[in-house]
């Protein structure tokens, strides 16, 4: 009567986890066989990155959560198309970013960029990096505003490379473009970002509206 996809695969993770943590490839194979727990372990490993990616696109925690959740569910069913020799990270990010973009399109209602840079880390135990200290608060805000005014694809390629620190190859896979075009696309995105930034000597002046 019922679908018998699970077989006994459900317990595979717990049975085997005592010896050593399963490799990603093993988890993927188990998940392909219908082992939901193994898939849950994969989700655990990528949930933070998926959520951040979705948040960078939707700029809403609620939408990002929904997008990440839907993406992980869809990815499970798409696993059979995943090729074992490919890296999983950009593959899942591509699904996540598509979900997030869909949500963004269906709910274009937010203004400005909800992202904030941490303003005061002095109370924390870790000292800010020299780069972070060098970037003044207002410059950060200007950068965030400028990013917020960019088109999705420009913002995403910048976010992948500089915020989520994906390699060029991973960025290409996550965006579904040829590796050779990452450099030129990134270059054009950075140019458009620079166009939106105030000149250095006027960095403290108010920005013109960049929404649109």
């Amino acid at each position, binding site marked *: 009567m019922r679908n018998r996809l699970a077989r006994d695969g459900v317990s595979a993770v717990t049975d085997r986890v005592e010896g050593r943590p399963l490799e990603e490839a093993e988890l993927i194979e188990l998940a392909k066989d219908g082992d*939901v727990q193994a898939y849950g372990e994969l989700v655990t490993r990528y*949930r933070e990155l998926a959520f951040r990616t979705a948040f960078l696109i939707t700029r809403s925690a609620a939408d990002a959560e929904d997008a990440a959740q839907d993406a*992980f569910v869809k990815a499970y069913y798409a696993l059979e198309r995943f090729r074992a020799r490919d890296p999983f990270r950009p593959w899942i990010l591509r699904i996540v970013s598509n979900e997030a973009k869909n949500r963004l399109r269906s709910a274009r209602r937010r203004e400005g960029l909800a992202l904030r840079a941490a303003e005061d880390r002095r109370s924390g135990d870790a000292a800010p990096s020299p780069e972070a200290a060098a970037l003044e608060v207002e410059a950060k805000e200007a950068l965030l505003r400028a990013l917020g005014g960019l088109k999705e694809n420009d913002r995403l390629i910048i976010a992948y490379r500089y915020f989520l620190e994906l390699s060029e190859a991973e960025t290409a896979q996550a965006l579904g473009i040829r590796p050779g075009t990452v450099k030129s696309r990134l270059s054009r995105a950075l140019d458009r970002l620079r166009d939106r930034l105030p000149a250095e000597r006027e960095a403290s002046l108010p920005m013109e509206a960049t929404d649109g």
Partner: protein
Amino acid sequence: MGDRMTRADVERSLIALGSTLEYPPAPAVVPTVTARLLAERAAARRPPFPGLALWPRRRILLLAVAGLLLLLAGTAVATRLAIGAIEIRVVRTPPASTPPVVESGTELGERVTLEVARARVGFPIVVPEALGPPAEVYVAESVFSSRVVVLVWDADAAHPPIEGTPWSTILMELPGSKEPLASKEILAETTLEAVRVGSHDAYWISGPHQLTLLTPEGEQRLTVTGNVLLWEQDGTTLRLETALPKAEGVALAESIM
């Protein structure tokens, strides 16, 4: 106009910005994702091709439940799934409108004999062979004119008592129903595992959680301290609560077959 920032400046600024960006805390998507996949499987409705939108009707229900609980608790519901007449809601914080009561005889309904219970309910009552006849039998009213049966067994050397109760085992049996007769609110941290009872899909839930019985008078909320196995067989939804670990709990359930 001043000079435009150089490309290198912009890149440096972006890297610095990336190291200080604040993200909201990542939500616990794992229980909700696995719960959705398990619910899909339980419903034997795997989409014929990947990427198909998943159970739209349930999504609508989910939105309704989420909206309701948002109003009630101010927090979001992640998902819900159901086995037979019991629906499971994964919630961030337990709803706390009424103080929950620990299961005890008086809360479980009217105490009757097994024979009377069999005569009163409209479905066959099953008993795990491994335990023998129950110590006590209760019949409770639930919504939609359905009756729920609760069987309890005393603790003994092989069957430790469930915390807060004198019993080793509590078996709740609910008739088949298209609408939920009871719901469970489990926290994202509560362990929810897919297991098998014989050939039936089942959930093993460990960790304290709440069970809400939908009765004609309203909701009756029970605090569950034992481990719970939920499954459906022959149209009856079965809920077995035990202090035993998973493998033994499942073996006990399988003695019903």
